[in-house]
């Protein structure tokens, strides 16, 4: 759209057949990172929407082919930089399948605790950013970040870094829980529901929020399943698919928790599903913290350096906060993988953005993008 046509374009604002081409470009306050939507508007209504991404492509999968198995663990932190521990777990689980290692009990419990804490971080941050897109100037976001900071402090005292944890290893975890860590986590889990109640009191009953989200960006279960959408977005449309229940990987089989399912699949359902999922994660955390066993945290057979799994392939997947995060590795017996492929839930959930946004206004397109919960690190890899 060269500059020369701009003035004439502007001279006749949208009437029936003349569309206003606007690119909600990589530099836009509410695209959650470098993501562009080429939108053509008829007045305020979205007529055509083409998502453009790739601005944050860092060639992660090719670098992993040249890096040793151990070397690419810190890179998985940078995939979905909000929930680094679940990325680590998915990668470590895939390599364990490849190399035939088994993590001891205590390590599996620690992994469940850390991934549920990461789910709390992700969902509360999402609710905060969704309201920020709707115009609530930062108040819900600040409440969400106040709770997220407490969890990040726990991560820092355990793994050393708040967001780039680099904690899981093949066959277990890098270091054991520091003294007093479990008590701190128990007290956090104890008073987290009070934050959720405060958050719901501030938002869920709010008429403006209901007006802005009900019936907006409706996703039908058939389209969701056909497009391969997973995670809270899929469950918001009513489809019962949660990999923690389907695969029962790790020690999830031992915990009793429920999976909330939505009714209409619009933005309000997605927001509510994430709030309810946070309450379920709290239940899992209570049970895991209650009966975490003592014992070693790494499989004695696990080798740190020049791990050479026997040739073969493996696909490991977990229920990440954004959906089914999968790693597919092919090993040719060498110290680094022959092929290293990631199934990014954010990218796959993003492919149907246009179907949800057609017919809505530009303000809704921004809110729908917010409810899809994308992180560009994972979308572009």
């Amino acid at each position, binding site marked *: 759209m060269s500059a020369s046509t701009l003035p004439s374009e502007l001279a006749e604002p949208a009437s029936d057949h003349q569309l206003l081409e606007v690119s909600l470009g990589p530099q836009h306050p509410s695209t959650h990172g470098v993501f562009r939507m080429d939108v053509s508007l008829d007045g305020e209504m979205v007529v055509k929407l083409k998502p453009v991404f790739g601005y944050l492509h860092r060639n992660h999968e090719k670098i992993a082919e040249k890096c040793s198995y151990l070397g690419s663990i810190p890179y998985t932190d940078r995939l979905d930089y909000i929930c680094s521990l679940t990325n680590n777990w998915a990668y470590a689980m895939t390599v364990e399948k490849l190399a035939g290692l088994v993590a001891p009990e205590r390590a599996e419990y620690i992994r469940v605790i850390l991934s549920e804490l990461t789910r709390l971080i992700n969902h509360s941050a999402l609710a905060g950013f969704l309201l920020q897109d709707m115009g*609530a100037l930062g*108040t819900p976001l*600040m409440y969400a970040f106040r709770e997220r900071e407490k969890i990040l402090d726990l991560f820092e005292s355990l793994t050393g870094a708040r967001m780039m944890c680099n904690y899981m290893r093949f066959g277990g975890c890098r270091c054991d829980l520091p003294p007093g860590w479990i008590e701190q986590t128990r007290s956090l889990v104890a008073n987290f529901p009070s934050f959720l109640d405060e958050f719901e009191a501030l938002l869920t009953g709010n008429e*403006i929020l209901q007006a802005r989200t009900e019936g907006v960006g409706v996703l039908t279960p058939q389209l969701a399943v056909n497009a391969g959408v997973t995670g809270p977005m899929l469950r918001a449309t009513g489809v019962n698919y949660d990999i923690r229940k389907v695969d029962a990987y790790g020690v999830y089989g031992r915990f009793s928790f429920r999976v*909330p399912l939505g*009714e209409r699949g619009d933005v309000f*359902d997605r927001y509510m599903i994430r709030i309810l999922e946070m309450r379920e994660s709290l239940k899992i955390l209570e049970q895991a913290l209650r009966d975490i066993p003592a014992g070693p945290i790494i499989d004695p057979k696990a080798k740190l350096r020049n791990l050479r799994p026997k040739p073969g392939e493996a696909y490991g997947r977990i229920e990440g906060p954004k959906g089914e995060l999968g790693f597919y590795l092919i090993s040719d017996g060498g110290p680094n993988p022959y092929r290293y492929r990631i199934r990014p839930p954010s990218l796959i959930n993003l492919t149907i953005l246009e179907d949800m946004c057609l017919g809505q206004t530009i303000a809704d397109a921004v809110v729908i993008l917010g409810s899809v919960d994308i992180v560009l690190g994972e979308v572009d890899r």
Partner: protein
Amino acid sequence: MSGLDQIFVWIGHRAAGWFPASVQPLVSAVLAIAGVMAVFGTCFALTTLAERKVLGRMQNRFGPNRVGPYGLLQPLADAVKMLTKEDIVPFSADKTLHFLAPLVLTVPVWLAFAVLPFGRNMSAINLDAGILFFFAVGSASELAVFMAGWSSQNKYSLVGAMRAIAQMISYEVPLVLSVVPVLMLAGSLELNDIVAAQGTYTFGGLARWNVFTPWGLAGLILFLIAATAESNRSPFDLPEGESEIIAGFLTEYSGFKYALFFLGEYLGLFAVTGLAVTLFLGGWHAPFQWLEWVPSWFWFAAKFGALIFLFIWVRATLPRLRLDQLLNFSWRFLVPLSLINLLVAAAWYWTGAWKFPVVAPIRWLLCAALIALPYHWLGRALRGAMPPPRKYIYAE
């Protein structure tokens, strides 16, 4: 008439006295203008700081506290920043309009302060048609917003300007309509008469302000909602919806013109708040009889501060409405309600003549019901068919 209450009037007369008689009216006018501009200029500076500090405290963090004690010099720092920042004008912009827009927005808003009574005989002019002057001057801001949006030759500012004009036109109707009951019962358009009408005190020494009557309370709520929309503040800040169209019609402005726009916006807010205080909260009258000794301008400032805090509080809490909801809300909710409010005021006036024993509470409840029921029905109609409350099934 205690000395402290009339201190500003006394200073004005003494200062005017030094000049020859012929030019005295001009001097007193200039003094009044200087006084208003000084007071509301500093009030603008302090409100930007107060807004950031109160917003901060509501979000569990400190507001600005690095520049000066408790951040008091922050407005000065902002002003210097705004003055020194480069004033970028886009190449394809319409230079003259781009320059004129902030002026056309700010100048009329200063005029609106001429009519407001800040204290006992402390209003710049006693215009016979005071409120009409206030709204006449206030309506020029739409033109300025259009000039800003159009001259920036930028898609976002064009969309922002369209939204701003649609919002301002559709919220000016309820703004004016919610003021009409006050005029009807006060019997005059002059603001000093309206304040005088609220001057008497009832049995418990409680002042007889308009807000204590059902139509007054409804009128104040309607007026404040329409006022937030007129001054583009939070639930209705669509014209510069940060998350959607970057900064709406302000996108292409920087440097001092940007600051001028904010000055115009805040002054519009002050003017409307001043009017709300005068019409519904009894202008400069004390809330109780035994508080009469406190100077009158203090009461005006206290009520003014309370309403500004309310605006900031609303800004901290509520998300933004969509354009179609915004217009529906005005035309299908506020305008009918303010028309019904006229009926309630009439009912209140006619039931004034009843004399049987416990008349006041019955009369109050009757009129309150007259406004509450339509409020509920219109609310339900606006929301459309009540969708069944969401039930979330849990799969094991």
